[in-house]
């Protein structure tokens, strides 16, 4: 049982008092910020990134992971009590969760969300422990051509599964790649696209980019259409679900976990897709189905389990392949690079304490969240009373300090302002920032792998389609594109026919 001994090793790392402390701080801060409406997990992780700068790689990653699933948890509390999703992955939780709250069953709704998430988190952690090592081993055998095609596939899949226009999303990926190429070219030493700015020699700051697109622009857009929010915090009562609730939810949690774990691994998947899919499936499968949308507890249990499972398993491609499946994972990779660790399959063998410590800490973190959320829910609700006008300047402060503190460069703060302006215009034009951030992280890696692949093949680009695994990835990417493009084409043709 190699997995078990690995997990035991990981527990040893994760259970050192300081790692427990950082895990706790991460979960705590994550929940705290996650509860606040209008600040999603990406912004939360980006904003809290500076808290990890002074730490070593393992504690930093453990804390960031804690922040991530803490934010996930906190989001559902807001969804149930205020009917405003704390972040997009808890949108479906508002459907039945808020109805339950209106009927005086806010407590059990919160309780089942926490319990479902805990169970899902535990199972997903085990899945990572079992599936990550063989995947990393496989990835180590990939040649540059395969790696390049894998990244193309990853980006296309992420784009296809995201919402919005496909062409814009691919364009944003390209834009992200180009921004990622700014700075010193590792092969030739040429400093590219720096406009003579010495500060740009190390490239555009990733933290500044993430904060601009997910922190500052979000605040600005929130300020533009400000809606009065009605907090629903009358009485929560006991958070413990009844035995009947638990029995009703058992299979919902199981199904949510299974679906969430699966979707979390997919590029572009993760928590958001998982929770939507789980709710849809639950509505179709669960018997009797009529209560959905009117406060059915299974309508909370399934998506909450699924989004936590998905959040957890989205670590698999990040840890084993070095490929982020969503913006949050892109931030994690960014954090790894700030710590001086090159992401990729070698992390597991070269830094086992980092890898297994992180996985084991997820277990501990999930337990902490259960403890943090159930008894303390009253405290979190108080946060909802803080008006946004006091909140957003605080977000500015964290973003600015964070952008500066990565490299102690004033330049990065100016970059933050410039990128915020750019992000604002792009968002107004309906261009999603998520694909761009993925492109930014993957751009330099793609260039490097393409270069090596071409070097080995003596400049013959067909190597990308003559190697079977590489061809498989590219075919899969093409199939995904066609699957999206064809129905659109068909629909347009029908439109034309009707005219």
């Amino acid at each position: 049982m190699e997995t078990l001994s690995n997990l035991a090793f990981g527990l040893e790392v994760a259970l050192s008092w300081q790692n427990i402390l950082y895990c706790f701080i991460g979960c705590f801060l994550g929940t705290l910020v996650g509860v606040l409406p209008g600040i999603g997990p990406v912004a939360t992780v980006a904003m809290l990134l500076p808290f990890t700068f002074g730490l070593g790689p393992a504690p930093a990653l453990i804390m960031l992971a804690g922040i991530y699933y803490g934010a996930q948890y906190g989001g559902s509390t807001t969804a149930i009590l205020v009917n405003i999703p704390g972040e997009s992955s808890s949108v479906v939780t508002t459907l039945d969760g808020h109805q339950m709250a209106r009927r005086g069953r806010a407590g059990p709704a919160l309780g089942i969300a926490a319990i479902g998430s805990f169970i899902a988190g535990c199972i997903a952690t085990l899945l990572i422990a079992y599936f990550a090592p063989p995947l990393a081993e496989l990835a180590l055998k990939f040649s540059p051509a395969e790696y390049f095609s894998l990244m193309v596939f990853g980006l296309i899949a992420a784009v296809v599964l995201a919402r919005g226009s496909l062409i814009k999303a691919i364009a944003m990926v390209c834009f992200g790649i180009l921004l990622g190429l700014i700075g010193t070219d590792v092969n030739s030493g040429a400093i590219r696209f720096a406009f003579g700015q010495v500060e740009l020699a190390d490239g555009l700051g990733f933290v500044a980019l993430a904060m601009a697109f997910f922190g500052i622009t979000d605040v600005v857009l929130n300020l533009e259409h400000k809606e009065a929010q009605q907090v629903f915090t009358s009485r929560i009562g006991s958070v413990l679900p009844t035995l009947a609730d638990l029995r009703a939810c058992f299979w919902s949690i199981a199904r949510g976990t299974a679906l969430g774990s699966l979707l979390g691994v997919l590029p572009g998947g993760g928590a958001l897709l998982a929770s939507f899919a789980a709710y849809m499936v639950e509505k179709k499968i669960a018997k009797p189905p009529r209560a959905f949308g009117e406060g059915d507890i299974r309508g909370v249990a399934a998506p909450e389990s699924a989004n936590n499972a998905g959040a957890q398993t989205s670590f698999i491609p990040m840890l084993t392949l070095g490929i982020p499946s969503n913006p949050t994972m892109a931030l994690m990779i960014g954090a790894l690079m700030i710590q001086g660790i090159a992401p990729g399959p070698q992390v597991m063998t070269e830094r086992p304490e980092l890898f297994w410590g992180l996985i084991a800490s997820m277990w501990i973190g999930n337990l902490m969240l259960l403890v943090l959320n159930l008894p303390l829910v009253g405290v979190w609700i108080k946060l909802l009373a803080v008006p946004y006008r006091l909140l957003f300047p605080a977000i500015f402060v964290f973003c600015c300090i964070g952008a500066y503190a990565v490299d102690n460069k004033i330049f990065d703060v100016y970059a933050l302002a410039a990128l915020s302006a750019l992000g604002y215009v792009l968002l107004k034009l309906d261009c999603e920032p998520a694909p761009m951030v993925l492109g930014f992280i993957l751009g330099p890696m793609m260039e490097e792998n393409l270069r090596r692949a071409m070097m080995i093949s003596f400049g013959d680009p067909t190597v990308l389609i003559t190697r079977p695994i590489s061809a498989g990835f590219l075919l899969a990417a093409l199939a995904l594109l066609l699957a999206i493009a064809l129905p659109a084409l068909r629909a347009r043709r029908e439109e034309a026919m009707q005219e």
Partner: protein
Amino acid sequence: MRIRSPRDFWAGLIFVAIGGGFVLLAHQYRLGDMHRMGPAMFPTLVGALLVALGVILALRSLVRDGAPVPSFHARPIIMSLLAIALFAIALQWLGLVAAIAVLVLVGANAARDVRQLDNLALAAVMIVFSVAVFVWLLGLPLPLWPIS
């Protein structure tokens, strides 16, 4: 010629400009060939793809209907950007304490409903918190006061 989908049209133009800009800038670096790709090769390829996508978007916006560009509100974005830029200037010359004060006091004006007294209190809280956590607890090398 009528623009039917302004959002797509402008997004397309921006992409053409950015992609074209990168392709042009890449000219000053060595292109190389496919076997030995120079520093200009990959940016040129990706930039060209971006231009192509932008052109498709812009052309498509002439035949396909789409939503109008939503209105821009000057106050939130301008105040936010101004606050961040002032933070950068203040941090360089006056140190963190003054920088946070400026950031909060100017930044808070991005909202419609501004209460200066609350903002003063908020600035004080943020200064104390940031200095305590970032500088003392985490030991980030941030200058607290003006460099003498």
